[in-house]
Structures are given as C-alpha cells and as structure tokens.
C-alpha cells in the first residue's frame, strides 16, 4: 500500500490497518481557545473512513464543533453554513483510531467503524459526537468500555442505530451474495448493499472460499473486493466488465432456480413473509429471481460440464489468470483501472455501465425479476401473482 502517501484515496476502509508507533490519543481538551473557531461549519471529506477520522481530528485541532461532517460529493450546505474541506491524513486517522481503542477498547472501535460506513447522511456527525462523548474526561475508562450500552443517551442511541443497520446489511450480504463462475476461472458476485459493507464481510468470504479466486463488486459504492487466493485487495471507483460465464455455469444457475421452485409448498404460500426476509431491493442480483429459461440444452450443458476439469482442479486456471494480471505493476495500484482481466475502464460496454450508472428503479426491476412460475398445482408462485404483494 505504498501508494497511499501520494494518494490516500486508493486506500479503502477495509484496509484500515495500524501498527504501533507514536501513541498519543487525540487531544481531549475543551472547545475554547481558538479565537478563529467557526460556529456553523461543515467539514467535507473524501468519503472514506480515513477521511472521516481526519475530519474528527481536525475538529479537535481547531477547537471547533462542526454542525455537519459529510462526504464531499453528497453534501448540500444548509443556510449560512460555511464549508471546510479536510484533506485526508492517514496519520491523523490512525491517531483517532488509537485514541478510541485506548479508551473504549476494540469492540467500541468496531462499533464506530460500522456506524461510520453507513450511508446515512447524519453518520459523520453521529460518529463525531460519539467520539467526543467517549473521549471526554468526564467519562472514566471503566465507563468508556460500557458506554455503548447506555442506550438512553441519544448520542449513543444514534450510534447504535447506525451500527445496527450496518450489521444487518452485513448479514444480508453473507446470505444473498451470489457468485457466477467466469470462463477465466474467477468467481464473480455483484451486489448492491445499502451500506458499504463489502470490506467488512470480505474476511468471511475469504475464509469460506479460500481456494477460489473471487471478486465481490458493490455496484452502489463502486467498490470491488478482490481475493486472488493469497491476498485481499479493494479497488475503488471501478466498473466491471462481465466476462463470459464458464460453460457449466448456466446449468447450475438453472438447477438452483429449479430447486428453488421445487422446494416451495403451495399450501403454505405466503409471499409477504418471504419479502419480509429478502428485501426487495436485493432481488435484482439474486439468481433465483432471474427469469427461468424455457428451453435449455441440458444434455449439451451436462456434457460440457463433465468434460471440464475435475472439481479439485478448477481453481488452477483461475490462479494463473490472476497471476498474469498481477505481474503488470503499472496496473496494480492505479485507481481507475484495476485488473484489466477483470475490470477495465477502457472497453467498458454499455451493458456493464447499465447497472452502475443508470440504475433502474427498483420498482421496475421488481416486476421484471418476478417471473410468474406455474407450480405443480397450477398456483402462481411469484409475487406478481396478486396486486397486494407489491406492498
């Protein structure tokens, strides 16, 4: 991660690591003392966790109480509000992190990170207030570890709410990420979480699928988590050009859809309950909600599938593909162009752009995704079956 000094934006939230060095927590003094302090000011940062922490650090340095801390690209100023752009400074961010851990412990830091990656517009200021509360001298170190359970305190309650949103989105990703097997051996998953949780769940997937190289691409935050079977990396601001699927991939996707239809019990049909468990906004990336193929050359696909590599050797070719692209240093850390085998900005097709830039509204997708499926008894199994399920 040597590029981070020159361009801190290449660092992602998930890469936020810290190693010892000079240990002093951020100043915990009062806000008096700066005659130039602004009183209705918004701090703008680059949208990363490091950016947010740098802004928190800056507030301590300048003895100011910003009224907003927000990512620059999403910020709309309020009336009479002045703006201050905060340059991301990794060292400052590390000091904030060290301060939080020293006082509140690792669990508190994790909660702060979860709240901070939330997409909620208030998240910057919620995190800032919580850190102030945590670091204030009136909170002893013993209390600080327990501060998060004081839910009657509105500052803590806000943090708890955001943390909870992120936690549930993490669980959603663990449940609903679906991989597609590309012909070049890479497993690719496209997802659209409401919070930028890919860095937080990457470790879980790396653990579980450690022998398969994969990419999880968050189309909402344009962030890709890449695992090449030795190392995890995150690439920001990329588009993905989808590669051809492996010959047997369509077979297994189709098999999964059929399995999904076959396990449903008509006599218990209750789509509202299902929709309660699977948020509709996630449907568009779920294999089981994609249209069924009416005709499918099973025998052909099966043949090709069985001709392929034996199961245990599948990962090999993929490794090779990744290693090829890795040996090209000019591509390794560039911000816009990640692996050109995987994601390339130059030859992006309209198709690849469709999701990331012109995001069709969920309502339309909802109706497209839910192909009516006649079940064995002729009862419609899709939510398009009746008007009341659109609720």
């Amino acid at each position, binding site marked *: 991660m040597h590029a981070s000094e020159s361009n801190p934006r290449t660092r992602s939230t998930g890469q936020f690591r810290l190693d010892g060095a000079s240990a002093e927590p951020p100043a915990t003094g009062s806000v008096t003392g700066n005659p130039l302090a602004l009183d209705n000011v918004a701090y703008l940062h680059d949208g990363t966790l490091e950016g947010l922490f740098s802004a928190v650090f800056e507030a301590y340095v300048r003895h100011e109480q910003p009224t907003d801390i927000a990512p620059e690209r999403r910020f709309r100023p309020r009336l009479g509000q002045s703006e201050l752009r905060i340059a991301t400074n990794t060292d400052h961010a590390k000091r904030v992190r060290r301060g939080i851990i020293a006082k509140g412990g690792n669990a508190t830091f994790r909660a702060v990170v979860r709240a901070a990656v939330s997409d909620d517009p208030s998240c910057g200021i919620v995190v800032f207030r919580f850190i102030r509360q945590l670091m204030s001298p009136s909170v002893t170190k013993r209390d600080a570890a327990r501060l998060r*359970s004081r839910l*009657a305190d509105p500052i803590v309650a806000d943090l708890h709410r955001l943390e909870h949103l992120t936690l549930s989105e993490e669980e959603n990703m663990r449940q609903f990420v679906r991989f597609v*097997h590309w012909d070049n051996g890479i497993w690719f998953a496209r997802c659209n979480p409401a919070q930028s949780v890919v860095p937080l769940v990457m470790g879980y997937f790396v653990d579980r699928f450690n*022998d398969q190289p994969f990419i999880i691409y968050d189309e909402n935050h344009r962030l890709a988590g890449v695992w090449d079977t030795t190392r995890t990396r995150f690439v920001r601001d990329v588009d993905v050009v989808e590669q051809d699927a492996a010959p047997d991939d369509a077979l297994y996707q189709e098999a999964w859809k059929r399995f999904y239809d076959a396990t449903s*019990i008509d006599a*218990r049909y*209750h789509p509202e309950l299902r929709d309660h468990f699977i948020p509709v906004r996630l449907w568009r990336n779920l294999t089981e909600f994609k249209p069924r193929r009416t005709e499918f050359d099973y*025998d052909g696909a099966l043949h090709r599938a069985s001709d392929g590599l034996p199961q245990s050797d599948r990962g090999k070719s993929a490794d090779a593909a990744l290693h090829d692209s890795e040996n090209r240093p000019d591509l390794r850390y560039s911000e816009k162009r990640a692996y050109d085998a995987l994601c390339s900005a130059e030859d992006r097709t309209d198709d690849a752009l469709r999701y990331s830039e012109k995001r069709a509204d969920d309502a339309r997708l909802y109706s497209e995704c839910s192909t009516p499926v006649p079940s064995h008894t002729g009862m419609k199994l899709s939510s398009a079956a009746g008007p009341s399920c659109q609720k």
Partner: protein
Amino acid sequence: MDLMQKLEILADAAKYDVACTSSGVQRSAQRGQLGSARAAGCCHSFTPDGRCISLLKVLMTNVCIYDCAYCANRRSNERERCTFTPRELADLTMEFYRRNYIEGLFLSSGVLRTPDYTTELMIRTLEILRFQYRFNGYIHAKTVPGTAPELIDRLASLADRLSVNLELPSQESLALLAPQKSRQDILSPMKRIAECSQASKEERALARRRTTVYAGHTNTACLKRRGYAPAGQSTQLIVGATPESDLHILNLTAALYRNVSLKRVFFSAYLPVNRDKRLPDTDAVQLDREHRLYQADWLLRFYRFDVTELIDDAHPFLETDIDPKANWALNHLDLFPVEVNTAPYETLLRVPGIGVRGAKLIVGARRTAMLRADDLRKLGIAYKRARYFLTCNGVWGGAGCTFSRESLHAKLASPIDGGAHGRRADRPIPGQLSLFGNDDEASASQTVGYTTGRSPRLGANGEAPASQAELGGKPAGQLRASPPLPSLPRSA
C-alpha cells in the same frame, strides 16, 4: 433421466421435511478446504411460502419400501422414482456451495432395498464430499429407522447434525399410520446418538484442556478426528394428522429435550398429500397451531418456561387468538406490572413484548440512566405490548386501559398474519378432526381460528434467532419434571 429432472423430483419430495437449519456448530475455515460453519446458521434464501432455504435439501432417493400413510413417497403411490448417484449429489452440493447458494447439504432419503443399503449410499456421498472434495461446510443427515448402529456411527462422524424423525407423537398413531416403523426403531438411534455425541464432546473437551496425559502420549488425536454429530440432533413431529393435544406434544417435546438432549424439535403442520381413510379428511392445514407450538417451544428453550406454566389438563390446546407468553402473563396478572428500572432479568424475560435481546439491552441501559417509556421504544422492544405490564419509574405504561384480564386480552389478541394468498388466507374448518370420534376433547377444542401474531420470525422455520441459544441458557437443563409424561425411555 437428467440431473435437472432428478433434482426437481427429489427436492420436491424432500420439501415436507421442515427442518432446514445450519446452526449449532462453529467451525472456522481451513486453508485449502472449502467451507466453514457458523453457530448461528445462515439462511440463503426464502421460498415463496416464507420458509428459509439454508441447505440443499434433497432425498437420496424417493424409492421407498415402506408405506407410511401421510407420506407422498410411500410405496403405494404412483410416482416417478429416481435416485441420485453419490457423485452427482456431491458435485451438485459443491457447485451450489461455491456460488453461495447454500450453507451445506441436508440429506434425507426414502428406503431403497433396506435401511442399511440406503444409509450406505448416503455415507458414500458424504465421504466424497468430506474426503475427496475436502468440503468443510454443514451437513445434516437423516437416519433411516432400522439402520445398523455402526452405520449410524459412521454417518455421525461425517455429518454435523443427525436427525431421526419421530413423525407421530404417540405409539398408537405410529402403529396406525406408519405400521412398518416401530417406536423402538426411532428411539434407540436417538438415544445412541445422544450418548455418543455427549461422550465425544467430553473426550474433546478433556483433550483440549491438555491436562490428561496417559502414559506418555497426549490424546490430542481425537481433536483431529471429526466429532460425533457435533451439532447434535433434531427431530420432527407432524401436527394435526392424529388427535394428540398440544399438551401431549409439548410434554413430549420437553421430555425429548431433557432425555435425549435434542437441539430442536420441529413441528410440521400436516399437509394432506394422500387420500387415505386413516387420515383426517380435510383440506385445512393447521398452520396457526404449528405457529403457536413454535412459540411455546421458544418459551421452553430460551425463556425458561416450564410446560406446566403454558398449558394444563383443563386447556390441553394452546389459545389460538393470543400467544402463549401473553396468555401466561394474563393468567398471572398478580405478578405485574413490574418496574423496568429494578426488575431482575428473569422477570423482564417474562414480560410480553420483551425478548431475550430486549431484556439484555434494558439491563445494560438502566445501569446509568433511569429509563422512561421513550427510551424503551428506542431499545427496539415491542413497547405497544409490553407497556401494560411495566412501570417506568413508577408510572404505569398502560394508561387508558383497565388492568384486568378482559381488557388486556382485547389489547393483546391479534390474528396470525397468514398472508393474503393461497390456502393460508382461508379459514380452516372448525372441528376438523372429527375422524377420531373417541377423542372428544380434541375435536371440541380444535376450533382453529384464522389467527395471530407476533413477529413471523418465531413461526417461520429456521433457527433465525439461534444466537439466542447462547444467550438463553440451557433449555433442556432448565426444565423441571412435569407429571403427565409420555412413555419415553430415560437416558442415563
């Protein structure tokens, strides 16, 4: 027949088994092996009926030499029959797993030739998965009644969870509907699994502590072997095919938790798939009853309730218009209201609308602040229900309502949300179990209304709040003996 057709037929045949949980064992991944398991389980999808899909749930084969009245695969039914080869099934499991469709495999089966032959097929499949493909994910295997104990042991060393389906709550019902299965066939493997699983757990715990060294060698070898059914065992009961009361079913459930240390008992509302004169002649599915039984089961396992507190001989069926916890509270109004800021944790757990998580949050939050009604709302408890049973700093939350059984009953009663579709939207026919004329009690109180609900999560299958298992203490150990026990052998 191609793989796709087989999958459709065998998934369709397995769908009536409601157990589909991937919980109970935490196993971190290993380099070079595919897969891991989480104690809390993970639901990867939900069917249009709202049940979770966590595992690839299929039958090894739907050929069956038995003839159980309630089963779609019984010998006397005309159906298309097929069998997976172990290789096909193992490949399918791996491919689904790699795409993150599933958490593992749920393997059940009809009886092909003999129970032993069937089990050997299943073992072969699991061996391919575990040894050849180095699959480290979750496997739930069903044991076929009548299998040799050695084969069960082998299965247990490959799978994470085993289950033996009890299916029918009493000996008489079993003799009537599943004449080829005997109660002994079902209970003896259950006991064996319980004992061996316990022994293996103890052995591993000892080895982990490294305090026992026998004549120069440490026994860490046993840690390298797979444990014996590390996620324990579960079972399933069909509700509504036979006239047993809720009282009977819940007592049986509690006894199973206590005596054979089951992890879960699943209830499956009887679905008419066959025409048979031994079966109730009705189209109605007792989904609401199933829902209430799950709620009661939850109270037994996580809320430290005893069966006798929920149900008694005078009312052998659970109320349909009100959930069992609220019902208990209404029967014990003298214990309420309780003060949120001082009541002990156990008491908070008993308040309708406060769950395990809510009670813990309250205990944490009240350390530093006096909680008011507004704070409780923010904690995410169902304050609308809880308020009648609480005082916050001395102020009763239920102002505007009289503190009496009748008025509170009206406030707390709510129909189970059965959805606007399909047969759940229909009202079951009252008195549907008239087939068994001798059991008046059953048919009289069998008026299953169109009903109810707390959050559907409770009723929905799947161990969604399985993390509560850790929080809620030991359900089986907490239960006290309750008088009218069904005849179950006691394990040592």
